[in-house]
């Protein structure tokens, strides 16, 4: 691997990998949806997507042709605190497509008609999600957890997408899509000097400064427990999300928390939640917990669906398991298995250059050295029950839970009232 910086301050990693005759180029920009201005949620994603619709010299149709005729695929992923734009191709296409990709990053076309089309596409996608019970539950959960002052509580809506103009996109691009602070990873079937030469030749012309800093969401203040019921009459099942805020990536006990989460809910059939609610009780097709972390802010959430008539029983089961977990922690046997999973699973996270690129981007954004992967086993292995249970007691608590349940009100309301004062919504209401 080669690690270097261009004179425009773009950091570059070149990874020579000769398993297949392919190449992946990905650029990570340290800006995500948390930097969307209030009432303009969706701006970052729209901007990232619009970049892929042509360059100053190459209109959208011709751009798509050049990529697809070579069998290449452009991809974008706009996250909370960073976004990634990339291209997958066969290695022989590098000399023609890498310059095009670099031009896309530096001088995208940002055409009016492409903007209009993309805006419509995003609005349509959002409308398609608008009636999905799990999406609704998640949206309401975040709105209750974070409110509208914290970026995590401000999700894109049809209204916010419609408010965005092409001028906003161009301005956002000029402010944030810049080489300084960005990272480019080139991985594939080329020798290291060739990768370095390509990166230098094609990405050095990328210029621009703005002084604008993207938003890193602050930690969430603990909010009071709350219960939201979102009424959707046609449902025979209720989808619900329950959880609370937790620390972010910078937390020194992050790995301990990940192991704890695996044991509690993310370890599939090995988890406590699945053992109780699916395997023993048959009350759900699937239940899981996740630790979703950004730099300084994170969320711990449990999600599942169950038939309306069983909501009370399932929610009681979830909360009982969670209280027991927070009080008693993990056992030595559970921890051993969780560590073995974490260590063994790393091989899958590095299978193929696509996964290698993703991993490198993640490592670098959170300031972890490349050696993090080689030393992963050494980092995980020493964590004992004391360390993990200390982290559990410090950061996980059943005292301030937010519950968001989407189901048929007439059937689920009586079951929800035992969990707290219920706030009522219709599924068409703004979260």
């Amino acid at each position, binding site marked *: 691997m080669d690690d270097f910086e261009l004179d425009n301050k773009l950091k570059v990693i070149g990874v020579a990998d000769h*398993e*297949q005759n*392919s190449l992946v180029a990905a650029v990570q920009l340290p800006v995500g949806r948390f930097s969307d201005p209030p009432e303009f949620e969706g701006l970052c994603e729209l901007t990232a997507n619009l970049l892929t619709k042509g360059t*100053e010299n190459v209109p959208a*149709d011709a751009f*798509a042709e050049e990529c*697809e*005729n*070579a*069998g*290449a695929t452009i991809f974008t992923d706009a996250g909370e605190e960073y976004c990634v734009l990339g291209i997958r*191709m*066969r290695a022989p296409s590098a000399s023609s497509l890498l310059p095009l990709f670099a031009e896309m990053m530096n001088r995208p*076309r*940002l*055409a*009016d*008609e*492409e903007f209009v*089309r993309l805006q*419509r596409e995003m609005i*349509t996608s959002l*409308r*398609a999600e*608008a*009636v*999905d*019970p799990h999406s609704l539950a998640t949206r309401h959960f975040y709105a209750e957890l974070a409110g509208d002052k914290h970026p995590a509580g401000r999700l894109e809506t049809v209204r916010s997408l*419609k408010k965005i103009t092409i001028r906003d996109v*161009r301005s956002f691009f000029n402010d944030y899509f810049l080489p300084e602070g960005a990272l480019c990873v080139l991985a594939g079937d080329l020798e290291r000097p060739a990768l370095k030469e390509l990166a230098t030749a094609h990405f050095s012309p990328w210029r621009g400064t703005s002084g604008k800093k993207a938003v890193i969401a602050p930690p969430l203040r603990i909010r009071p427990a709350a219960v939201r019921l979102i009424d959707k009459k*046609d*449902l025979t*099942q209720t989808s619900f999300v329950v959880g609370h805020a937790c620390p972010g990536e910078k937390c020194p006990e992050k790995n301990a928390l990940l192991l704890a989460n695996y044991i509690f809910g993310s370890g599939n*059939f*090995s988890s406590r939640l699945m*053992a109780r609610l*699916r*395997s*023993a*009780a*048959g*009350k*759900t*097709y699937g239940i899981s917990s996740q630790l979703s972390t950004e730099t300084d802010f994170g969320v711990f959430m449990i999600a599942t*669906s169950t*038939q309306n008539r069983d909501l009370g029983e399932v929610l009681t089961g979830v909360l009982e398991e969670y209280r027991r977990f927070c009080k008693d922690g993990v056992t030595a046997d559970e921890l051993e*298995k969780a560590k*073995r*999973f*974490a*260590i*063994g*699973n790393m*091989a*899958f996270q*590095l*299978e*193929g*250059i*696509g996964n290698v690129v993703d991993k490198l981007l993640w490592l670098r954004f959170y300031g972890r050295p490349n050696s993090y992967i080689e030393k992963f086993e050494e980092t995980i292995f020493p964590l004992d029950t004391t360390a993990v249970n200390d982290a559990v007691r410090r950061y996980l608590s059943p005292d301030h839970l937010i519950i968001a349940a989407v189901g048929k009100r007439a059937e689920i309301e009586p079951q929800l009232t035992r969990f707290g004062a219920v706030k009522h919504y219709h599924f068409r209401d703004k979260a």
Partner: protein
Amino acid sequence: MLLDGIAEKTLANGLKIIALKKTGAPVVSVQVWYNTGSSFETDGVRGISHFLEHMMFRGSRQVPSEEHARRINDVGGHCNAFTAEDVTAFTNSVPRDFLETALALEADRMDGLTFDPRLFETERSVIVEEYHTYMNNPVAKAFLEFRTGFYGNHPYALSPLGRIEDITSISADACRDYYRRSYAPDNAVVVVVCDADVKEVFDVAGRHFSEKNARSARAIPPADDHRDIRDQNRDAGRRMVRKVEFDVPVLVIGYPAPPSSHEDAVALEILQLVAAGGETSRLHREVVRRRSLAVMIGGMNHLLKHTGMSMFFAAFTPDVGAARVEAALNRELERIKNDGITQEEMAKVKNMTLTNRIFELYSADNICQRIGYSETVEGNYRLWVERLDALENLDLKKLVEVAKRWWNEENRYVLVLEPRRSNPLLYIGGLARRVSGLFGRRDAQGGAR
């Protein structure tokens, strides 16, 4: 070439083992594909194949309930399973050192399930929950109804999900009987992709599977009425319109398609890519970009062992209307049928297919899945391996014949999903756009269109 290293061996009991050594990430993929699925079922037990798939995780003489998955997880791996119309497959991905663990577990449950009554009933509840998950998705629910109409009296008419009245009444005895008649070495293929010599794979697999007995009970016969669905005279039911709790109008068009092993299958795949694959496809260019009739458009061929569906779908806004989208889509397909495709389009499809193949080959799981599917559903894994060669040998003129044969108007089935709640004012922007288009627009660079 990586795939040149695929080797196969058939044991005395009929079990076929297909193995490939793949270096790179130190992982192993072990999959077992059983030649049984929903098309083998009869009334009263619709959904039994899927039920059995679930029970495969619920305990055997040697391995307690859920312990298969836990043992796989404990070594850092993951496992899963799925039931389809023609096959039921069980997948395991583990780090390199645990090849034998995965093979031993699969061998154990091939003939060792215990069907504990209490666990059977609990799993029934889980399957009912899964059923409700689909039924609470209005688009999925409508599509299930559509496919039933599409396939008519064919054994593929019902999805592997089955019928709720059968799911709630299937007995453990019926399931056990189905298991004995379907799950046996002479009705299965084991596929292994890993960083080990194929000889080692055959040795380890042989140790665990050789003692298994071929079926002594009468096999479940495949359905004997895999008729050509084009011959079914069903004018009524070719067009389905449903109002659904979903905010985006959707159009689906389905054509009866050939079996996956048919000589037309590769050609149809090329046609599908030209018609609907990517932003440079015919449909995207014309229906989305030039005429702004659809917001998104796509397609896929779902080819099964005996027949299938070649389908196209579009999402659009209510101000447009399904009829206009359908007409535009049909027009493009007619153009392909009349004029064929260009050399440039053919070259593009070849490049797309080659690039996809290259990226597929990174993943042991993917390779395993492709081999398993091709062997059991297409009849020979070499059909997948040699697909790129088959592309090279295709004659453009033949593509026109294939398009005319399968994208035949007389056989077309249409599904229109209309939002139950539709307020045209929500789409006033679309109306304005269509009017303004009459007067020309300019892009950011000042160029006129």
